[in-house]
């Protein structure tokens, strides 16, 4: 019985639900990510107060908080499987592509939950001007997609390497710079009333490139 398209969808869905259940039971990443985000925003707001006129700083601060809060968990999506010795189990029930896309969807959901808490808190604590919600959510959403696709891909590739922690940082840093630069520029532009077309194009193209690379690479992962 070869795997069919519907089997792959079932596998992605099953992996997404398994990831959610595991995260809910262990709180492996969410608690740490929320703690980092809340602590950072509180500390910055105490130190600098409200910054309604510094849209450049606000845009950078929001992305830095989101990136560093989420990074530890995003990077460990596959490392957890390797260190818990569950990768063989996973490979026996789903294709590498289904595993990776299940993990990618979970990472996106994780970022969404993190943003749901962090963004309102950020807007209140930093006294940020009311965003133009359409462009704001578009830049945030595409940036999150690009971030999740990049970290999932890099995490999958380095998961079985020795020194994977250092390798993850070394490989993902240059790749994430594009996301950060376009994300910061896009958020700043929407606060300043400028169009975000260029940033949206960059983030869309980048996310599409990462997803395309994932499609090509995932089925060759873990071929010892």
């Amino acid at each position, binding site marked *: 019985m*070869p795997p069919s398209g519907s089997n792959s969808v*079932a*596998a992605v869905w099953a992996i997404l639900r398994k990831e959610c*259940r595991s995260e809910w039971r262990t709180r492996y990443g969410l608690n740490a990510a929320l703690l980092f985000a809340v602590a950072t925003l509180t500390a910055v707001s105490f130190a600098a107060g409200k910054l309604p006129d510094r849209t450049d700083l606000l845009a950078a601060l929001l992305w830095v908080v989101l990136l560093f809060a989420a990074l530890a968990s995003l990077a460990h999506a596959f490392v957890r499987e390797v260190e818990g010795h569950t990768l063989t189990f996973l490979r026996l029930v789903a294709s590498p592509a289904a595993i990776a896309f299940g993990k990618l969807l979970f990472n996106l959901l994780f970022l969404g939950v993190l943003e749901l808490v962090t963004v309102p808190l950020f807007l209140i604590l930093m006294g940020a001007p009311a965003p133009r919600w359409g462009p704001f959510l578009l830049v945030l959403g595409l940036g999150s997609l690009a971030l999740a696709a990049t970290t999932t891909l890099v995490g999958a590739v380095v998961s079985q390497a020795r020194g994977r922690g250092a390798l993850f940082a070394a490989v993902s840093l240059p790749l994430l710079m594009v996301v950060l630069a376009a994300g910061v520029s896009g958020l700043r532009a929407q606060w300043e009333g400028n169009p975000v077309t260029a940033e949206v194009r960059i983030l869309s193209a980048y996310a599409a490139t990462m997803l395309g690379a994932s499609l090509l690479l995932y089925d060759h992962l873990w071929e*010892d």
Partner: protein
Amino acid sequence: MSGATAVVSGALEVEALGLEHFYAGRRGLAAVSFALRTPGAVAVTGPNGSGKSTLLRLLAGLLRPTAGRSVVRLAGRTVEPAERRTIIGFVSPELAFYDELSCRENLVFAAEARGARGAEALARAALEPVGLDTRAHDRVTALSSGMKQRLRLAFALLHRPPLLLLDEPGSHLDEEGKALVERVVREQARAGLVVIATNEEREWRLAAERIELRGRGLGHPA
């Protein structure tokens, strides 16, 4: 064991043609060739590091051979390594489950990920014959080594595969557990195919045929 009988809709053939594997320049399995066919049971024996586990991982499609190839045909159709997970049941000491999930949840996840219908019923049917039905809701972290081995057997039988690859299936098992392994092998050997990697005489005697690996194995440079 009625819930765990293999479903074989056609002859299954497993062939190894000069199958060989190296781990980072060290020999994991010296070249081996054989041909197997349903129904039956075959034991793979050999000293530590001779490549018994490596051979099973190669047949399962979990490793890519350095040289040679393995061919699996079901009802005349070649099953590519990437698809083999759908027709094999795999037991290995290195197979681990999610500690934070229960036995039932692990098996339901496996069945759902394979796209099976009635995942709950399949999980129940797999846990009962291995004696874990009363521990179905216990998290894996609460299981003893023997119970984890029983869960591995339940996982291998979950989708009633035509090919069972059992690496040291009796590890950590008590007398009742070892009898369970014997029952599984005998029933599978009637309709499907079992390959058992072991050095336990009681286990390799279950098989009608034996492949003895003589390679010097891991730890020796190629």
